[in-house]
């Protein structure tokens, strides 16, 4: 169905990784705690309490706004009450921001395929508190308030996304960004990144904005992709059949993978927003703002572009190496220590260091193997002091022991063996032990030489100089 295009805007809620909640000192992370352990009179909305804003919440939200190129990070912003009744919202209102959010404007670039980029405009970034959790057990509804008051930052986009796939890509890049700038773990499975999607369709190429529907509670990237795709399909079907689209609020049921119409929620006016009387405005002076922004690192896409430019890396390498911030730092530090070709370091990173990271389940920044270790290993290999096999083994040995590669090579006798007479003796024995393979070789299948080399490598525990061994076999087999 090419004649329609989708018009999609997202509201993403990101749980900030602060130690305490937004308005009280309760622990923010309750992932491993039983229900209702991290609660107090403030976050359960008992009468007579007063909220006090967590400084770090403002700082992390400002970082996100800056990373999304906000046009204006407001020197003065206000908290507001959003009034509605739901059992997991004990106060009867959520403290959020409304007419004067922390930041307005900005954009977030989402790379698509083949070098294209979707620039998604950001309308606003604001802070608010999370609600509790309703757990349904049989017919019972049980409420856990641990999540109540966990800080959220919400980023609202303009309707600039054009497909379910772009929605998924946006979320993947957003997750990368929040981890990169250190404001959230962005783990969707833990509900740290959630999104609502506003969807409408229109004839491809037109500029009109048609009636939209809203899908609530998209809690994984797969769910977002599947649900948005399903809703686009439904709207196209309805429109093609001449039926109207209604402003519905839809709920995505992850188990049955279906959209169900929610009983119509309150409209915006029904929330009766007003300025939060229990909290004074957030004043972000120039000096504080500068202090916060000093901690803003080079952003992932900028670093990716610089890796291509500065180190002449292929796009593919640059993309992988900037997937996670400590990995990109590991790469650059290794180059600094090594001094040789960046592509050589990149190959080691992409094949072997990433394997190590995956196997150990850690970030590059947490490895015991440090950039100067990797640089030393590559140097040893360049200088033909060790073989490639030994170099690969060294990565694990350094990771396990934290010792320097050079001292491991010395102590374990891993230096490359280039003693020709010793290698010749080994090679001759291999030929004596394997008359069948010798016949095969003489019969014209010369590739079997690789197998012979392999035998010597095995017997030398990977230390034999493989080029030299090959040479020796070529000499021996000619005779």
């Amino acid at each position, binding site marked *: 169905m090419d004649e329609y295009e989708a018009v999609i805007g997202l509201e993403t809620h990101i749980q900030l990784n602060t130690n305490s909640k937004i308005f009280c*000192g309760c622990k923010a992370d309750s992932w491993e705690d039983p229900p*209702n*352990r991290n609660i107090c009179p403030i976050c359960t909305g008992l009468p007579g309490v007063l909220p*006090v804003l967590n*400084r770090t919440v403002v700082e992390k939200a400002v970082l996100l706004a800056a990373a999304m190129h906000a046009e204006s990070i407001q020197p003065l912003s206000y908290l507001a009450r959003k009034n509605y009744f739901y059992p997991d919202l004990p106060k009867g209102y959520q403290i959020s921001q409304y007419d004067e959010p922390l930041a307005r404007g900005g954009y977030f670039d989402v790379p698509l395929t083949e070098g294209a980029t979707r620039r998604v405009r950001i309308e606003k970034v604001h802070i608010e508190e999370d609600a509790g959790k309703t757990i349904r057990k049989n017919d019972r509804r049980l409420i856990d308030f641990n999540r109540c008051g966990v800080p959220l930052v919400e980023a609202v986009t303009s309707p600039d996304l054009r497909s379910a796939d772009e929605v998924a890509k946006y979320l993947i890049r957003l997750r990368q960004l929040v981890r990169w700038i250190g404001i959230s773990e962005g783990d969707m499975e833990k509900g740290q990144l959630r999104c609502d999607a506003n969807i409408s369709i229109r004839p491809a190429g037109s500029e009109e904005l048609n009636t939209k529907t809203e899908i609530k509670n998209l809690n994984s990237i797969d769910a977002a992709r599947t649900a948005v795709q399903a809703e686009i399909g439904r709207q196209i079907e309805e429109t093609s059949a001449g039926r109207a689209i209604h402003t519905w609020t839809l709920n995505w049921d992850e188990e049955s993978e279906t959209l169900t119409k929610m009983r119509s929620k309150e409209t915006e006016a029904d929330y009766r927003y007003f*300025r939060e009387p229990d909290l*004074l405005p957030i004043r972000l002076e120039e000096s504080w703002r500068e202090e916060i922004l000093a901690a803003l690192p080079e952003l992932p896409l900028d670093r990716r572009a610089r890796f291509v430019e500065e180190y002449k890396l292929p796009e593919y390498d640059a993309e992988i190496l900037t997937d996670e911030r400590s990995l990109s730092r590991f790469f650059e530090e290794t180059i600094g220590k090594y001094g040789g070709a960046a592509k050589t370091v990149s190959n080691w990173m992409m094949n072997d260091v990433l394997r190590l990271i995956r196997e150990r389940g850690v970030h590059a920044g947490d490895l015991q193997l440090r950039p100067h270790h990797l640089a030393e290993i590559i140097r040893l290999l360049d200088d033909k002091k060790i073989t490639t096999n030994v170099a690969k083994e060294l990565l694990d040995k350094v990771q396990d022991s934290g010792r320097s590669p050079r001292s491991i090579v010395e102590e374990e006798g891993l230096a490359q063996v280039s003693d020709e007479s010793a290698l010749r003796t080994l090679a001759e024995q291999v030929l004596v032990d394997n008359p069948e393979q010798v016949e095969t070789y003489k019969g014209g299948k010369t590739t079997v030489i690789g197998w012979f080399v392999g035998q010597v490598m095995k017997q030398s525990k990977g230390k034999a100089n493989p080029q030299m061994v090959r040479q020796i076999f070529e000499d021996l087999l000619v005779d």
Partner: protein
Amino acid sequence: MGLTIEEVRHIALLARLRLTPEEEERYTEQLSAILEHAARLKEVDTSHIPPTATVLPLRAPLRPDEPRPSTPHKQILANAPQVKEGMFRVPPVLDVEP
């Protein structure tokens, strides 16, 4: 600027109040009178006065991000009409059409 009875019903619903037909009539009158009274403020010319959200110094006090012990959960759960598995048990939510 009088309120209609439909508006009063809607507001009552948002506030989760159940009104009798007599109360609906009475509150339509009373709320309209209150609104009209408040609307008199509009007669003051404020075009040269900047909007004021608060008369207090414009600065929220901020708290360092340090966790402090929460309240023992039994103490807070003691307020619940019904507790199940360490959680507040609530009646099923009826979705109502505002």
